[in-house]
């Protein structure tokens, strides 16, 4: 699979990007650069536009203004197939079309890498099985996806992205539905991927997962205001309290801040 070789350093960047949220005034453009090896966490209250931002970064939705660049090439100049070899997305909600098994679902991730007439080969099958193994769902490979629990489906979706094997991984609340052990396992997997040269960019609702695992943070306020930077500069109680409109207590666990909502 020569198609999987990629240059060691890559970046997805935005220039003056304004995402298109109906009813929101313009302003607060984003100038992000998401590089190899980075783990980004996007935090913000409901409706701040986290999912819209992910869809915009993945090229599924046009921005209201600004542009996206993949290694300094505007993404609008890239073919959708070429883009999907570089950028992959785990959606927050998924629809079941026709019944499909777990293994078939993971194999879908090979689509951007195969020519139209090409069947999935032994390599592709091995990749899909490795991904399912990594997400601890290989034992379910012959089950229909529709019969799985929410957390199992979430892990199959992440395994599908892993099978797609893009450089930049976009994930919309990847720890949704996961039990504590699998939350940690998924965050560990993602940071391992970043250490291996991928770029990770995910929306999270859990401040403490973000504090423990992300090295960069983007805060999205309900009015469209944003700020971003290294995690230790972003994860300060004042900013987070304003972000969620919620008083927080902070303690330190294993050298990382731990945030707990105060009782109202």
């Amino acid at each position: 699979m020569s198609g999987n070789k990629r240059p060691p350093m890559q970046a997805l960047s935005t220039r003056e990007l304004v995402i298109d949220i109906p009813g929101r005034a313009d302003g607060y453009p984003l100038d992000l650069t998401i590089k190899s090896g980075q783990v980004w966490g996007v935090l913000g209250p409901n409706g701040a536009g986290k999912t819209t931002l992910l869809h915009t970064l993945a090229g599924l939705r046009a921005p209201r203004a600004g542009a996206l660049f993949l290694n300094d090439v505007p993404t609008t100049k890239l073919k959708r197939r070429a883009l999907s070899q570089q950028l992959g997305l785990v959606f927050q909600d998924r629809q079941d079309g026709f019944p499909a098994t777990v293994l078939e679902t993971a194999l879908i991730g090979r689509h951007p890498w195969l020519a139209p007439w090409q069947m999935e080969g032994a390599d592709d099958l091995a990749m899909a099985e490795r991904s399912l193994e990594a997400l601890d769902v290989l034992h379910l490979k012959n089950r229909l996806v529709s019969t799985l629990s929410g957390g199992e489906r979430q892990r199959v979706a992440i395994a599908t992205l892993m099978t797609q094997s893009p450089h930049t991984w976009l994930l919309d609340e990847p720890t949704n539905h996961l039990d504590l052990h699998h939350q940690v396992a998924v965050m560990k997997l993602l940071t391992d991927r970043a250490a291996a040269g991928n770029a990770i960019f995910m929306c999270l609702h859990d401040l403490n997962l973000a504090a423990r695992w992300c090295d960069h943070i983007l805060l999205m306020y309900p009015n469209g205001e944003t700020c971003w930077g290294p995690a230790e500069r972003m994860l300060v109680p004042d900013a987070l309290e304003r972000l969620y409109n919620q008083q927080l207590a902070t303690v330190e666990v294993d050298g990382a801040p731990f945030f707990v909502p105060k009782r109202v």
Partner: protein
Amino acid sequence: MIRPITLPLAVLAVAGLIAMVMSVGIGSVAIAPADVLLVFLGEGSNLHRTLIFELRLPRTLSAFATGGLLAVAGALMQVLLRNPLADPYVLGLSGGAAVGALLAMLAGLGGAVISGSAFAGAMLATLMVFGLAHGTGSWTPSRLLLTGVVVAAGWGAVITLMLAISPARELPGMLYWLMGDVSYARAPWPGLGVLVLVCALVVPLGRSLNVLARGPMQAAALGISVRPLEWLIYILASLLTATAVTMAGSIGFVGLVVPHMLRLVLGNDQRLILPACALAGGTLLVLADTLARVVIAPEQLPVGVITALLGVPTFLYLLYRSR
């Protein structure tokens, strides 16, 4: 998509051949399968040659082409609308074709004009739904489906009106056409040609269709240009259906039931399902047409009655046992 593809297709192809040999052998003069083979080898009696080449084979091939066209069109529509209940007629195409055909009959015109008029009606119906579903807002499968269903209801009313005002002597021919009937189909080659052509075009698209079945957003994230693919499927499915309707009227249930039965047995890989639909749909209609010729021989039933009588219980059974 990890199952072998050649074996099921080979089995279906053999079944299709057997059905066709049986079909050309059965009739007022029975011809044994061995004699049928002799005729195809260039031997056999003159009577047998005439019966087979001039009467029975064109009809059998027409039935095969019609069944294959409808089954492939149904499978495509189900993927396009991501709705297992979609069939080739769900978007009102057969209604347009029927109005075209009945108009030609009312005008007292014959065979070729009826076919041409039906094809024109089918194309008109397709363009109408295409244009209306496009509308001014966003395009979604549910919007296309609703537009199609409402337009189909409109055609239904027009058909009823035409039947109500038609002279009594025209009614049997009209009803036969509406029920679907291959007895007048004498030119199987255009239908077979369209079937082979469209299959050759959509089988390489099979994996893209598999991805599209997971929803448009997921498909786009995996590198598919969703809108052009959807329109291509719509146009191809319409072309298939229009060709089938022009050959044999609106024959029901083949396009709904055949893809479902195959999905239950063979899974959901469109690269296998689409060619399998062509073979199984063709075989089913050849068998149904053979039955239609022999059940009350020398009288003939419209083949649409047989497919509906077979299709309704099969479909209800599948629905009943589906999870």
